[in-house]
C-alpha cells in the first residue's frame, strides 16, 4: 500500500492579471479632428435567435419542397427554351409561341418566389432585431439598423426629429427612449386608430350581415387587411408566405401566451355581451366579432412593434371596447379619434 501523498506546491503560471488603464495623453492642438458621433452600424451577428428558429419551418421538409420547386422550374424553363429553338428551326410558329409563353410564366413564378423569400427573411430579421433590442444589451448602432430596416427615408420627419434630439453623450438606452418617443409613438397612435376603426367597421358589418357564411368571409378578409396595414405601418411589407407565418404566430401567441390576459379581459367582456344580447342578438354578434378583431389587432401590433411595449403603456382592449359598443349601438358621441 502506498502512503498518502504529501502536499506539494506548484509554480503559479506567469500571467499578468492586472488591468491596465490608459494614461492621459495630450495631443497637439493642430491634430486634424472631426466632430465625433456615436458609431452608426453594428456588426451583423449571424446567430439565429430562439424566436427565429420558432418562426422557421422544420428545415428538412422545406428543403425538399424547395428542391422540387426549383428543379421543376429549371427543367420546365429548359424544355420551353429547347422548344422555342426547335420551333424556330422547323418554322412551327404556334408551338413556339406557346413555349415562349411558358418561359415567361416560369420567369414570373421565379420572381414571385424570390420576392416571397425576401419578405420572409425581412420578417425574420425584424424578429431578430427586436429580440436583440429587448434584452437591453444591444450593441451600439442597432437602432440605426432598425431605422434603416423600417424603411424610413432619409427625410422622414420622425427620423429627423429623432436624430436632432440626440446628443453625443447619449448612451444606447437613452437613444432608445428617444427613438420610442419620436419614431414609434406616432406609429403607435396611428396603429391604435387603425385597430379601432377596422374593428368597429367589422363589428358593424357583421351586425348587419344576414348570413353566417358572409360573416366568416368578412371577418377573414378584414382581419387580413388589418394585419397587412399594421405591418406596413411598422415598416414591413408582407407577402403571402410571410403573412401566413405572421398570422400563425399571432394566433398561437393569442392562444397560449395571452390566455391569462384574455381571462382577465373576459370578465368585463362577458358582462357587456350579456347586456348586448338582451338588447339585440345581432348587435351582440357584431360586438363579439369586433372585439375579437380588436384583440387580434392589438396582439399583432404588439408583435410587430420593433421595441416591446413597456408594461404601463401597452395598449389594452378596454381602450377600444367602449368605442366599439358605442359604434354598434349607433351613437356617434365617441367618434374614434
Amino acid at each position: 500500500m502506498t502512503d498518502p501523498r504529501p502536499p506539494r506546491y506548484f509554480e503559479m503560471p506567469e500571467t499578468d492579471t492586472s488591468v491596465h488603464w490608459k494614461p492621459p495623453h495630450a495631443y497637439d492642438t493642430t491634430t486634424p479632428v472631426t466632430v465625433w458621433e456615436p458609431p452608426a452600424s453594428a456588426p451583423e451577428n449571424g446567430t439565429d435567435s430562439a424566436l427565429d428558429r420558432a418562426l422557421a419551418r422544420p428545415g428538412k421538409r422545406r428543403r425538399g419542397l424547395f428542391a422540387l420547386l426549383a428543379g421543376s422550374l429549371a427543367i420546365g424553363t429548359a424544355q420551353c427554351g429547347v422548344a422555342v429553338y426547335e420551333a424556330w428551326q422547323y418554322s412551327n410558329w404556334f408551338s413556339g409561341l406557346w413555349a415562349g409563353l411558358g418561359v415567361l410564366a416560369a420567369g414570373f413564378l421565379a420572381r414571385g418566389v424570390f420576392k416571397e423569400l425576401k419578405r420572409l427573411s425581412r420578417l425574420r430579421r425584424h424578429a431578430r432585431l427586436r429580440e436583440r433590442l429587448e434584452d437591453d444589451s444591444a450593441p451600439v448602432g442597432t437602432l440605426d439598423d432598425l431605422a434603416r430596416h423600417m424603411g424610413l427615408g432619409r427625410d422622414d420627419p420622425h427620423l429627423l426629429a429623432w436624430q436632432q434630439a440626440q446628443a453625443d453623450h447619449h448612451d444606447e438606452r437613452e437613444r432608445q427612449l428617444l427613438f420610442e418617443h419620436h419614431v414609434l409613438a406616432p406609429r403607435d397612435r396611428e396603429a391604435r386608430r387603425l385597430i379601432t376603426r377596422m374593428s368597429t367597421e367589422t363589428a358593424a358589418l357583421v351586425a348587419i350581415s344576414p348570413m353566417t357564411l358572409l360573416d366568416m368571409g368578412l371577418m377573414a378578409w378584414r382581419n387580413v387587411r388589418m394585419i397587412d396595414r399594421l405591418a406596413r405601418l411598422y415598416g414591413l411589407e408582407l407577402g403571402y408566405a410571410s403573412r401566413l407565418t405572421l398570422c400563425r404566430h399571432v394566433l398561437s401567441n393569442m392562444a397560449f401566451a395571452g390566455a391569462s390576459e384574455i381571462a382577465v379581459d373576459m370578465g368585463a367582456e362577458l358582462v357587456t355581451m350579456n347586456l348586448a344580447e338582451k338588447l339585440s342578438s345581432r348587435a351582440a354578434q357584431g360586438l363579439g366579432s369586433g372585439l375579437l378583431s380588436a384583440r387580434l389587432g392589438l396582439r399583432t401590433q404588439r408583435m410587430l412593434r420593433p421595441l416591446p411595449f413597456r408594461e404601463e403603456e401597452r395598449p389594452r382592449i378596454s381602450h377600444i371596447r367602449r368605442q366599439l359598443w358605442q359604434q354598434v349601438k349607433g351613437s356617434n358621441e365617441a367618434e374614434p379619434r
Partner: protein
Amino acid sequence: MAWTLPKHLRDVLERGLDRQVRLAVTGLSRAGKTAFLTSLINQLRHAGLDAQLELVSAVREHRLLGAQRVDQPDLSIPRFPYDEAMASLQASPAAWPTPTRGMSELRLAIKYRTRRASRHLTGEEATLTLDLIDYPGEWLLDLPMLQQDFHDWSGTMASLMTPERRAFMSTWLEKASAHTPDSVVEEQTLAELAAHYTDGLHQARRDGGFYFIQPGRFLLPGELRDAPVLQFYPLVQLEGWSREALDALPADSLYQTLKARFEHYKRHVITPFYKSYFQRFDRQVVLVDVLTALNSGPAVFNELRYTMNALMQSFNYGRNGLFSRLFTPRIDRLAIAATKADHVTPDQHDALQTLLSTLMSQPLQDMRYANIPARAFALASIRATTVKKLENVTPNALALSGRTLEDQEVLLFPGDVPSTLPDETFWARQGFSFTPFHPARHTSGALPHIRMDALLDWLLGDKWL
C-alpha cells in the same frame, strides 16, 4: 385669484396636493453643488425653448411651460446667487461660479400642463414649486457628529489619523500631547491649540484633498470666528483612560472643558442648521466628485467612501403618504451622480457610473432595503469640453477639446476611468491624473450639460405628470 390665502396656509395646501418639492442637493465641498444648482435653474428657465432636455418626458411632450423665480419661504436667508454665477460664466475669460460660503435659498415655480384626469375639473395648467438650498459642503460633515458624544467622536478622529493625515496635523499633535485629559489648561493655551488644529484641518483639506474634516465650521466659521464654541479639538490619545474615569474628572479639567464645548457646538450650531434645512426634504441628489478623488490616491478615495457612507445616515428616507408629506416629509427618491463627466470621454461614462455605484454600495444597499428608488448617473452640470474624434492617430480614438485651468487650449485623451478601484500595485505604478477644465465662455441660451435632463426626469418626472 380673487382672494389670497395666507402664505403659510398656501404652502400647507400645496404640500398636501403634492405640488411642492424640496430638493436636497447633497455634496461635499467642491463637488459641484453651486454649478449644479446654477445649471438646474438655467435649464428649467429655458425648458421648452433652447434647453437640451430631450430626456425629460414632459419636455418631449411639450408640457413643460417654463420656470420662474418666486419669493422664497424664509426671507431671512440670502437668495441663491444665480445671476452672479451666470455672470462669471459669461465673463471673459469664463470662470466657475465662486464656491459657497454661506446658506442661500431659491424657490422656483415650474409651470406645466398636467396629464392627470383631474385636469377636466381643475384646469390643465399646474404649478410645481421647487425649493432649492445651497450651503457650504464643509458644514454638511457636521451632521454625523450629532449621533456621537465627545468620547466617541475622539475615538473616530483617532482612528482616522492615518500617516498621510498625521503629516498635516503634526504641529497640533505635538503640542496637544503635552496636556493630559485631567490637566487644567488655560483659556489662552486652549485657543492656540484649537487654532493649530484648525490649521491642520485646512492643510489636510487643501493639500491632501481629504474629505472627512470635522468640525466643518472650523473651516468656514462665518460669524462664529474666535468664539469659544469653535475652540475645541478631539483628544486622540485616550489610551489608559476608561470612560468612567474620564466622566468622573472635575469640571475644569481639559476633558470636561472640551466635552462641554463639543456639546454646546452640537446643540447650538449643528442642531439648528440640521433642523431648519435638513429635516424636510422630499427628493435628494448626491453629487460626488469621483475623478478628483481618484487623482488624490487610494487613501483619499477610501475616505470619500467612508465620508459618503457616514453622511447618508443623516437623512430621513421613506415613503411619503399624505400625512407624512405634511408633517414629517421624507426623501422618497434619490439620485447619485458622478459630476464632471465632461472631463472624460463619453465611452468612459459607463465605467464612471459603475465606479460610483461601487463607491456608494453601502448607502445603495440601505436604499434598496428601505425600498427607495435610487439611480446612479454620470453627469456634467455645465459642460466644459467638446468631444472630438481623432482622424489619423488610432481608429475611433476620442479626445476632449477644452481649456485647462492654466488657460491652455488642449486636445486631450484624459485617461481611462476604472470601473472598480484598482489594487495597490497599480497606484504605485501609474495612478490617475484627470485634468480639470475651465468652462467655455457662455454667450446665450441654455447652458450645455451632460445628462441633467435624465436626472431631472428621474427626480421630478412623477411630480409634473
